[in-house]
């Protein structure tokens, strides 16, 4: 019993991002398949481990690999069967629902009854940014509140000055469908990625003549497309979400994988970091219809919400960090209270039948801007659950909406190849 069950194991890279290892256990003679990363034996990026064998000492295993095998070992010792585990998970789920139900003593819109309604918004398109040759898939504002970066199906990433419409930088990627882009907090670099399964960081130069594309550096490596990326508080760390079902935290300088987040059972389509004051968590949403909240340090999934009926395209934290919103192909946007651990509002209308692709809050959190596949942006009153306004203008799906850092403008990116900046 004291023998090391992992001694002399072989590692081979599976079809997915997980590194799987197997060993015949005596007794009983079963093959245990473990998913996880081993921080020691796979040098650079465990997410895409090279084929071949590698033997290692159990003492150097990544903790979760050891624990999972030990649990399987103990589970088998206790004579746990699949049926008994399924029963236990059903019981736990029911208990969780009960606990959540006990705390629902009132609805959000009831608490918000005394709040005065939002005055009619007079938001108009003030700038149309033309220049991409194909669908604009993503955009992000710079902290200086005037620059923004956008990425497109045409493989290009453009940095714009939204006031003057000047294109400051153009980066060409070797792949099409650049689905993710983000501005670094310092404003000195941008990150982008997509169908190339990578997320690269490109330092921006003040010298217009310099070819920024040449300085592009690959940081993140996934085994499927990169759907979302975000810098953490500094330019030094990058968080990515991928079609391979995982999220990952990377060190920009070395390209090293710092932490990986496993739990989604399908493509992860979006992620958002909690506002810095509230600590080290982030939320992700994906094709498994789940929104998961993660602890960045431990890699642990701390909360999970499965209210949506279809793919979750976008997740975004409420400005205080105590809640978040999601947009889904089921034509609804939802609002979740993290401290009550449940969904507290659904933003939907019978007349809205197209999927929502993106959401963002206004500065105070009162308004939720949501971009839809029917080319419109609906503006929702977060507290009362009613629609405040509809913004028209785009001639194809709205792929991304983002409020500027000072809350004065809304930028929307669309499959009509343009971006629009709107203000009151």
């Amino acid at each position: 019993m004291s023998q090391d069950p992992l001694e002399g194991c072989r590692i081979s890279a599976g079809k997915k991002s997980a590194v799987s290892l197997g060993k015949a256990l005596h007794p009983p003679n079963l093959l245990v398949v473990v998913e996880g990363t081993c921080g020691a034996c796979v040098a650079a990026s465990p997410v895409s481990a090279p084929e071949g064998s590698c033997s290692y000492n159990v003492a150097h295993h990544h903790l979760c690999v050891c624990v999972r095998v030990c649990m399987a070992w103990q589970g088998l010792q206790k004579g746990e069967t699949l049926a008994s585990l399924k029963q236990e998970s059903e019981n736990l789920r029911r208990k969780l629902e009960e606990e959540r139900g006990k705390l629902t003593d009132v609805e959000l819109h009831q608490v918000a009854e005394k709040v005065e309604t939002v005055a009619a918004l007079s938001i108009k398109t003030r700038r149309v940014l033309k220049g991409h040759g194909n669908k604009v898939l993503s955009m992000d504002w710079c902290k200086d509140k005037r620059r923004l970066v956008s990425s497109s199906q045409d493989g290009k990433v453009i940095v714009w000055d939204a006031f003057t419409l000047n294109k400051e930088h153009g980066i060409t990627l070797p792949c099409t469908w650049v689905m993710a882009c983000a501005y670094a907090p310092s404003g000195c670099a941008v990150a982008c990625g997509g169908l190339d399964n990578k997320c690269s960081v490109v330092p921006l130069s003040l010298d217009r003549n310099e070819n920024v594309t040449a300085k592009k550096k690959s940081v993140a490596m996934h085994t499927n497309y990169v759907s979302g990326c975000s810098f953490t508080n500094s330019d030094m760390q990058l968080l990515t979400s991928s079609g391979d079902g995982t999220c990952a935290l990377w060190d920009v300088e070395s390209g090293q994988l710092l932490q990986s987040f496993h739990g989604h059972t399908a493509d992860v389509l979006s992620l958002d970091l909690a506002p810095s004051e509230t600590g080290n968590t982030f939320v992700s949403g994906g094709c498994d219809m789940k929104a998961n909240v993660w602890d960045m340090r431990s890699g642990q999934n701390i909360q999970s919400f499965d209210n949506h009926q279809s793919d979750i395209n976008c997740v975004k934290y409420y400005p205080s960090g105590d809640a978040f919103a999601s947009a889904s192909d089921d034509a609804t946007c939802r609002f979740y209270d993290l401290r009550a651990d449940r969904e507290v509002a659904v933003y939907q209308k019978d007349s809205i039948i197209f999927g929502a692709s993106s959401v963002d809050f206004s500065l105070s959190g009162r308004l939720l801007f949501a971009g839809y596949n029917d080319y419109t942006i609906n503006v929702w009153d977060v507290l009362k659950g009613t629609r405040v306004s509809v913004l028209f203008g785009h001639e194809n799906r709205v792929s991304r909406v983002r409020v500027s850092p000072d809350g004065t403008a809304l930028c929307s990116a669309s499959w009509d190849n343009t971006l629009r900046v709107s203000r009151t």
Partner: protein
Amino acid sequence: MSGKMCSSSSILQAQKLVDQLQIEACMERFKISLTAADLVRYCQGHRRSDPLITGISSSSNPFKDKKTCVLL
């Protein structure tokens, strides 16, 4: 052999699910009446500094179209 591998990997997955649910079950939760009140308070407290709700004057709006100059 492959049959046995499938069953042990699904046992492992079921075990992972049970552990995940146990972690979630231990979480401290609060009543919606309390948490919702906090959300409302945040909104109201930041209302004045939300330009999209309160609007901004033309003079400080860099996106507003400037009127043409009149040469006197």
